[in-house]
């Protein structure tokens, strides 16, 4: 299903912290949102997950997925949508996992919550773990016994098992080591390939976005400064800020020391 956003505005009191005029995320498409801290990129993600009011904010405008307007449905209706049609993974996946439960129990409960018959659990879990390159033994571990990269891949396995349509990934790799980061990116690519999942990939790293995404949105101070095809933006950035972000991407061999 296509996620369509129109004039989405997130505000706290009188202050608008994020404004996204337009977004159209097709199935299997990846759109990257680039920006630094305070740019409003994470606020946009929270709004699309229906979580803004928990932080005391307000959302106006519309965001529709499969005929459901995400900005106006009740929390009760959200339960049918969140984790089912649209899901989110965050920077520190371990803190999002209940520390008292084994990953297997956690996985099983999540499947049960979304109405998957118990007889199917084992098969679904193993298949999903295989997709994210994790061994099934990890189901016997507790969250603190796995690495950050493993936890992030486990979170993606949940998304795969539930056949989520839209995944919002908010800085999913910035807390990880570079070699581990590469694995998570690869797993995200696989998710898109196999399940046609749409991905909204939020990152401060334009290089990562350029690798994963078809389209990119550059945000600064709550507003969109540039939006379009990734290739186009990289080749010919319209705003100075985008250019600064591009220039800030570290390059190896550019001006190295002798």
């Amino acid at each position, binding site marked *: 299903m296509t996620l369509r956003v129109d004039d989405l505005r997130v505000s706290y009191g009188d202050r608008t912290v994020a404004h996204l005029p337009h977004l159209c995320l097709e199935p299997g498409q990846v759109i990257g949102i680039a920006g630094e801290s305070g740019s409003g990129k994470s606020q946009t993600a929270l709004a699309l997950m229906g979580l803004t009011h928990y932080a005391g904010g307000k959302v106006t405008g519309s965001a529709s997925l499969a005929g459901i307007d995400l900005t106006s449905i009740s929390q009760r209706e959200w339960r049918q949508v969140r984790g089912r049609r649209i899901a989110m993974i965050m920077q520190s996946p371990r803190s999002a996992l209940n520390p008292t439960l084994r990953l297997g129990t956690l996985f099983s409960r999540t499947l049960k919550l979304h109405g998957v018959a118990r007889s199917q659990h084992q098969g679904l879990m193993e298949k999903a773990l295989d997709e994210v390159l994790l061994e099934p033994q990890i189901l016997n571990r507790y969250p603190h016994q796995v690495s950050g990269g493993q936890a992030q891949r486990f979170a993606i396995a949940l998304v795969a098992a539930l056949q989520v349509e839209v995944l919002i990934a908010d800085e999913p790799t910035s807390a990880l*080591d570079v*070699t581990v980061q590469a694995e998570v990116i690869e797993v995200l690519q696989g998710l898109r390939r196999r399940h046609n999942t749409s991905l909204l990939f939020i990152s401060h*790293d334009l290089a990562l976005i350029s690798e994963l995404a078809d389209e990119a949105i550059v945000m600064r101070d709550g507003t969109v400064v540039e939006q379009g095809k990734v290739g186009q933006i*990289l080749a010919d950035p319209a705003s100075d800020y985008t250019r600064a*972000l591009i220039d800030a991407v*570290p390059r*190896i061999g550019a001006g*190295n*020391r002798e």
Partner: protein
Amino acid sequence: MSDLLLVKGLRLAFGQTEVVKDVDLRVAAGPFGLGVIGESGSGKTTLARALVRLHPVLAGSVVFDGTDVQRASGKALLKYRRDAQLVFQDGDGALDPRMSVLASVSEPFAIHGTIPRAKRRAQVAALLDEVGLPADVIDRYPHQLSGGQRQRVVIARALALEPRMLVLDEPTSALDVTVQERVLQLIERLREQRGLAYVLISHNLAVVDRLCEQSVVLYRGEVMERGRTRDLLERPVHPYTQALRAAVPELGVTRPPIARRAANVHSTLNGCPYFDRCSLAVDQCQTKPTLRSVAGREVACHRAEEALASH
């Protein structure tokens, strides 16, 4: 070139675990940068702390300008405290929340009595200016500054005693990319203007590439490869260095999938630390490789030639 800092056979423990094993480092007199490349668990932060004597040494020596740092006491230690400074990863925790910028940056003057009280404010102002901070931050408190500003304050404080060497522990990894760029420029400028030597500890190859002529790659506390930074990054030999190099995202480039290890090779305790993740591992790798000279640098890998050929 004479060595400013010479580290030999350094072994460090964190709790009961040995996190740095038999590491040698050389830092030439400034301007000079040595990069220590490592990911989490590589022991790099413990190493950084040991270099400024914040962490006890299990074995080995740290010699700075002819002084054995571990044994130094009294005047010799105070001199080392002036000559070598640490810049932390997290500029937030590195500043006392109850102290103004003025108080924090002038603390080194107070400790060493180098600048009389009346002249400290002017000195601090000059330092803030040198690191590119506006004059009005001098009376602010850490929570009133941005992350980039805090990191500059930390650098200003480290420079106050005119050190000859800085240990930079992930100095930019907590910062936004555009801010990171400005801090890197600052370090480059200080290096040239002050003739600074530094040990830069980072997982970010591009940062090391830009600031350091020599580099060491650490994995689980052991040196995998060392040599000229350019050689290491343009033509990495050790499979781990190759993996690190391949993991760096570049604009508009889609990386090839990661090579995976053959499933029939089993983990080992006394062998190569990279054994578990290495796609080239063979039985021979169950004995520990020692550093040897390959393609103009030192590599700890039995299969360095094969690795070089496969790259």
